[in-house]
């Protein structure tokens, strides 16, 4: 489930509020809030669309997991999905590396 919005990185662009399919976030005058965490479907898509790598979705789908943001920021987890699919400037060559065709039919 979605666990944090990092207030240091977030620019209040509200993209996450728009793109979350289950409407988990609410707009505010500043940084959006996680208003309905229990509705999160753990799809990781808000992370893909956040231009600032300011969001973190924990992989636990059924339970909330308290997160230590300071420790988290010392790992490379935030934004890792976006980099892996090639949605950052530095990694855009990864958009065409799908090798599923070698794996189908196993």
């Amino acid at each position: 489930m979605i666990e944090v919005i990092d207030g240091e990185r977030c620019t209040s662009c509200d993209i996450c509020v728009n793109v979350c399919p289950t409407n988990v976030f609410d707009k505010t005058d500043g940084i959006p809030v996680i208003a309905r965490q229990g509705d999160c479907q753990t799809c990781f898509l808000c992370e893909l669309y956040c231009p600032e790598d300011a969001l973190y979705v924990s992989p636990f789908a059924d339970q909330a997991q308290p997160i230590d943001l300071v420790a988290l920021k010392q790992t490379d987890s935030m934004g890792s999905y976006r980099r892996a699919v090639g949605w950052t400037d530095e990694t855009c060559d990864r958009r065409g590396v799908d090798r599923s065709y070698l794996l189908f039919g196993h």
Partner: protein
Amino acid sequence: MPNPTHRAERVSAPEGSVVFEADVLVIGGGPAGTWAAVSAAERGARVVLADKGFCGTSGATAAAGTGVWYIDPNPALREAAMADREKMGGYLQDRRWMARVLDSTYQHSNSLADWGYPYPVDDRGKSQRNSLQGPEYMRLMRKRTKLAGVTILDHSPALELLVDDDGAVAGASGVRRQKQDRWTVRAKAVVIATGGCAFLSKTLGSNVLTGDGYLMSAEVGAEFTSMEFSNPYAISPAFGSVTKTLFYGWASFTYDDGSVVPGAASKGGRSAIARALLEGPVYARLDKADDDVRHQMRVSQPNFFLPFDRTGIDPFKDRFPVTLRLEGTVRGTGGLRIVDDSCATTVPGLYAAGDAATRELICGGFTGGGSHNAAWAMSSGAWAGQGAADYATQVGPAVGRSLRSAGAVALRSRQRRAFAPAALARAVQAEVFPYELNYFREASRLQGALGRLDAAWRDVSEADAADASEIVRAREAAAMLATARWMYRSALARQESRGMHRRDDFPDQDSRQRHYVTTGGLDEIWTSARPHAEASYAEAAE
């Protein structure tokens, strides 16, 4: 390019609502809905697309990505592709439809390449088109939908259909949940592309898929088919949501004590996993993947690894607990019955596409292992969009038609107190999640579940309208309840095992039951048998 002035028109409306006039309304913005919208607009129709979430991220494809049934137009390859799955699907496919879908998928995938989808190129320089990355594909489809002049309403779940005096479908209405107001689209034809029903099981990307389109369609009298083929369960880490199963082809499955679960496999041995899970935890380890395969897995499906990387599990070396999450009609084959090549339903003005429609025509009773669903979503989407646009042209100017809202449960004032949606959703889950009820079916257990589900339906149909803050949830829970009842009623009617439908009391396939089960109704659910196409062709020839 379509004429950009062909846009749906926003007309004046009372405070707290927006109203559009259009030719075609598409409900749902996954692959089926976006292909429908683009194709209708290309025919010159004025189109509105309303999605519950955000068109581009919402639905099963956006989150999961899909293999695609893309086969080069070489007769031998095509023949092999069609023959390949017939046994698994219980011989309920229809060759004519399979051939149409292969042609159409080939064309649409090639359009995606022209539009800039970054298909990978193999060692011999050939572009490989049998896989689509979900976020990438659906971001592109949103862009194409906008370019086609379609008006997109995001965060705008549809609640009910509108019908005219003759009972033809003529639009829908719903809420704009981020604007706290209501929308109405008056249209000449409607495409239902709301996906399947996965019962809020948290299978990847599917909590927006609660069978809403089925409920709305049933309220105008539409029929369903193959609803007994609605019990696929997908493997995921026990704690997680990533139900992508391809890589479990390289897994070994073990009990708590480390011994191997006999017969367990992702393909062809998933029921052994379900039986073992009834006894206790089951673990997986992808220890059959060599270094090359591991690398290919990482680059092909990055989200598969998120649950592992973020919990410090090495899935190739460590054993991790797994579970099976119900996917219902998302990777089942049941859905709205379509009656012609344009994906029309039995109700005038109503079309169906993608998981909202049956996939029996190309998959019969089994779709696990993917590819066919994605091919169906783009093909049926395009056909339904074109069919709806052509129908709208025939209807002609629709001035002065008086329209009526067709929704009932949770929408109308009634005697009893409004029901609690969350409690109802849990009650439905308690009847459809358990492996001993739904994976392994048997008459008395199915009847027990149906008794409880029918009683719940009587309660909710007498309940008062839900208030604004609960209305979407209430309709979702009611749609899940209705879906469960069509599913189990059809499962009782099929007294054999075929495709994904397994009856403990009828373990064998029965050649006399090579037919389809049709179902429908809300207060009273009915079923009937329809002959398979080959049987009806044979009759016609006599």
